[in-house]
């Protein structure tokens, strides 16, 4: 049988299985190989909430979706073309995401009576046999058995042997989509550098998976996806949390500051800690505090001492940091607060994504306590956005919120990375000793942007006391004077507003500068909205899209943009938080599109809403 090679423009593959099956590893390695082939891509890991739910159960299913193509890709894709499942639970939970007529590749060993039972499927109702998958192209293979047989000579135990199943699958899928194995082999060699036997066994499993595709006479065709025409430059693949981490190191280096990262472990922010802890050779201090409050408090202490202070958390951890943020606002010290948003109040759904902390970032502190807010719009954009956050924090002597979310944090995409020398400069606003001054140093003296200076302990002549009590303008002395309080409240707010003067105007990602409909987005909805606009355009529907990186202050030209459209649509993974701000601030009757399911929007959800509004 000859196997045809068919050329595709883009493909969405979803891997699913038990969280012990190494699904995330198959996903990331397939992604790396794909990136090296210069396809554009987007990924979406879908973790279970439990670290190790009982193997084989629905609660233990882990998923990873990759969307790649020979053209621009901005999302991990809505439904998938190919679903690769390691067990019955993986199929049951994910078959709803498979397109009509799509491909299923299943490990039939994961559909034995035990696995069916664990997935709450009747033993007599095996989906691989009962005809329920008739609309799909189903390929099954006894992957567990084939792997065991293929690497039995290495003498590994059953557990170790079965762990290599994922490499069999990676090999098979690499064959099917014409991906070379080199980067995967490199990875295995590095990962198991201490145990050659395991490394060799995994490489063997990878190869037998690859050859299985070729020899098993199951597949009539395999696929190729050509490189995407991308902007010239140097690329790598990156996740949002990695990009944020590198952005922090870069900012600290460019600013000439020691990076102090005070944090407490929490999903989905912890990977930033893991990444930064590896970069101590840059003088990075990672401080794992006893709790969220100590995490931010220690960071404020470090900022006071002259470090670039960064603290990070997610939902509940941010709640705990609120009081200390108020202190940082009063002290007017640089401080970056990272919130990798996750779904729901309280513990909610820790591994799922949501954009529900925008109003928390705006208003979640007592008194009048404004903080600038920026939000990243894609995994790679986390680098630029956090870099800008650091720059503004340091140059405006202010705490600042950086908003990301679980979707950006764990998602990956190609990144056209910059060279260090091309990054913007960052200039700390140090207080200097004036040898001729006759009076004591005045910590709340400001420049024309209303920015005070950074007076570092250790410098003679700058001794001063600051604190959380209301302070007198200029001198910083404690003051309960009523007029002074109002003045200080207004100064602190105006200082944040003044940041807008140094920001570029909001520009359009799609469409004209005026018209019937503007889609105004923020954060991780970017790729989906952009794709929706492109697809609508193909259908002859022209809409405009502008995406906010700066949420406080808003860009100077936002009012003008809003008034140039008949309708404004704001899609958000919350109940309408930006919508509320836009309505309140600009009196624009914006329409919301809201999804609060712990999942990002699909492209069709956006485009259907656009069609509805234009009808």
């Amino acid at each position: 049988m000859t196997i045809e090679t068919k050329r595709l423009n883009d493909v969405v593959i979803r891997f699913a299985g038990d969280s012990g099956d190494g699904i995330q590893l198959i996903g990331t390695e397939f992604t790396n190989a794909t990136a090296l082939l210069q396809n554009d891509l987007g990924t979406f890991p879908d973790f279970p909430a439990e670290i190790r739910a009982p193997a084989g159960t629905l609660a233990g299913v882990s998923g990873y979706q990759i969307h790649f193509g020979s053209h621009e890709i901005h999302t991990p894709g809505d439904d998938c073309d190919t679903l690769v499942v390691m067990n019955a639970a993986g199929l049951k939970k994910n078959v709803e995401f498979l397109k009509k007529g799509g491909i299923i590749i299943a490990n039939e060993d994961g559909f034995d009576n035990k696995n069916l039972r664990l997935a709450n499927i009747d033993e007599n109702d095996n989906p691989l046999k009962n005809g329920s998958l008739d609309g799909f192209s189903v390929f099954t293979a006894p992957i567990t058995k084939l792997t065991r047989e293929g690497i039995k000579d290495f003498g590994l135990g059953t557990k170790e042997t079965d762990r290599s199943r994922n490499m069999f699958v990676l090999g098979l899928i690499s064959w099917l989509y014409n991906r070379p194995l080199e980067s995967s082999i490199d990875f295995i060699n590095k990962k198991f550098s201490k145990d050659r036997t395991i490394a060799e066994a995994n490489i063997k499993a990878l190869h037998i998976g690859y050859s299985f595709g070729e020899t098993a006479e199951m597949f009539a065709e395999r696929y190729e996806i050509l490189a995407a025409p991308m902007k010239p430059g140097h690329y790598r693949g990156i996740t949002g949390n990695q990009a944020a981490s590198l952005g922090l190191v870069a900012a600290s280096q460019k600013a000439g500051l020691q990076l102090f990262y005070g944090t407490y472990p929490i999903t989905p922010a912890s990977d930033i800690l893991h990444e930064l802890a590896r970069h101590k050779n840059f003088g990075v201090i990672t401080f794992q505090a006893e709790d969220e409050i100590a995490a931010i408090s220690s960071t404020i202490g470090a900022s006071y001492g002259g470090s670039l202070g960064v603290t990070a958390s997610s939902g509940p951890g941010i709640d705990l940091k609120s009081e200390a943020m108020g202190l940082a606002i009063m002290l007017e010290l640089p401080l970056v607060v990272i919130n990798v948003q996750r779904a729901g109040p309280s513990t909610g759904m820790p591994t799922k994504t949501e954009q529900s902390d925008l109003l928390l970032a705006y208003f979640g502190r007592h008194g009048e306590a404004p903080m600038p807010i920026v939000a990243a719009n894609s995994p790679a954009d986390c680098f630029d956005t956090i870099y800008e956050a650091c720059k503004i924090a340091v140059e405006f002597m202010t705490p600042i919120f950086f908003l990301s979310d679980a979707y950006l944090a764990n998602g990956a995409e190609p990144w056209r990375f910059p060279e260090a020398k091309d990054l913007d400069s960052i200039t700390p606003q140090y207080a200097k000793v004036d040898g001729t001054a006759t009076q004591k140093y005045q910590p709340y003296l400001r420049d024309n942007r209303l920015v005070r200076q950074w007076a570092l302990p250790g410098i003679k002549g700058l001794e001063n006391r600051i604190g959380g009590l209301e302070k007198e303008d200029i001198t910083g002395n404690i003051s309960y004077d009523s007029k002074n309080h109002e003045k200080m409240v207004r100064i602190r707010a105006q200082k944040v507003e003044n940041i807008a003067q140094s920001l570029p105007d909001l520009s359009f990602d799609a469409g004209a500068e005026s018209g019937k409909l503007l889609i105004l987005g923020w954060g991780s909805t970017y790729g989906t909205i952009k794709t929706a606009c492109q697809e609508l355009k193909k259908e002859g529907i022209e809409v405009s899209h502008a995406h906010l990186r700066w949420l406080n202050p808003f860009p100077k030209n936002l009012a003008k943009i809003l008034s140039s459209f008949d309708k404004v649509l704001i899609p958000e993974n919350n109940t309408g938080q930006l919508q509320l701000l836009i309505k309140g601030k600009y009196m624009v009757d914006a329409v919301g599109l809201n999804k609060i399911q712990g999942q990002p929007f699909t492209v069709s959800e956006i485009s259907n809403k656009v069609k509805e509004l234009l009808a």
Partner: protein
Amino acid sequence: MTEVLQHIPEVFTAKDLVTDQEVRWCPGCGDYSILKQVQTVMPNLGYKKEEIVFVSGIGCSSRFPYYMDTFGMHSIHGRATAIATGLKTSRPELNVWIVTGDGDALSIGGNHFIHLLRRNLDVNLLLFNNQIYGLTKGQYSPTSVEGQVTKSTPFGSLDHPFNPLALAMGADASFVARSMDRDPKHLQQMIERTAKFKGTSLLEIYQNCNVFNDGAFFTYTDKETKAGEALFVENGKPLIYGEGNNKGIRLNNTTPEIVDLTTGEFSTTDLWVHDEKDYLKSTLLTRFFDSPDLENHFPRPFGVLYAKERPCYEDAVHAQIAYAKEGKEADLDSIIRGRQTWVVK
């Protein structure tokens, strides 16, 4: 910005430490004495004025930084310990002091308190214990004695109080001492010991709040009762106290006993000799916490109860960074590039 500042002693006097801020404690408050003793001792410690930082939380005691013309931060309730941790970790060369109270350190800030002690940063922790909430006008605190009648406990407090020094020993503190506002000489000595010890040095200071809890410690500070109730310990010296040094403490195996030195049955050579480096014996000593109302109670020890150096957190942090720097050049482009890259032409 982090070049090491040299510890060249520079002459400044207690007067140079006074700020232009009006001191706002109630007249007669024990805080005045503590401020005075700190200002007196400070010029002799070998630090430059600009290297000294006072960090405080919230409470009467936490106003302290405003009255010291050094660097200072009056922060938020309970968090001075955590803020100082970040400051000292990032700037190990600074001379960092934490001023806190029984509510600030042991109630709202209890968590940071124990973690600071376990990490053992080289900072000085002055715990003003007045067994009451002063700033909020008179509620019981975590060190108030059982049965204490306060605004929030009109029928008497039901809470069992903390023994702060025993708590500190439990958190593996490396330096634990106690003094009192009304014994300026002893307080000065203790402040100096506290400052000179390398590691987190905890000095608990019995401080009289004459407005809401007047006389809480008079048993230990008043002429009539002091000798019989306060046991001043000194390293290498036997544990002696009482009117005319008539009493001592001896260890009968592991059990401490009060002995009468006037009967001839025991002499000073039979007594427990204080060894401030002996963790177990120091732990026992911090357990001398009986109410003076109890019959045959132990006297309350004052002085350095425990002092044994062990590695400081901030030193370990910077040693690890230095080690990492040796192994790997800090090349920003190389980490931005990562493991695998490709070029689009």
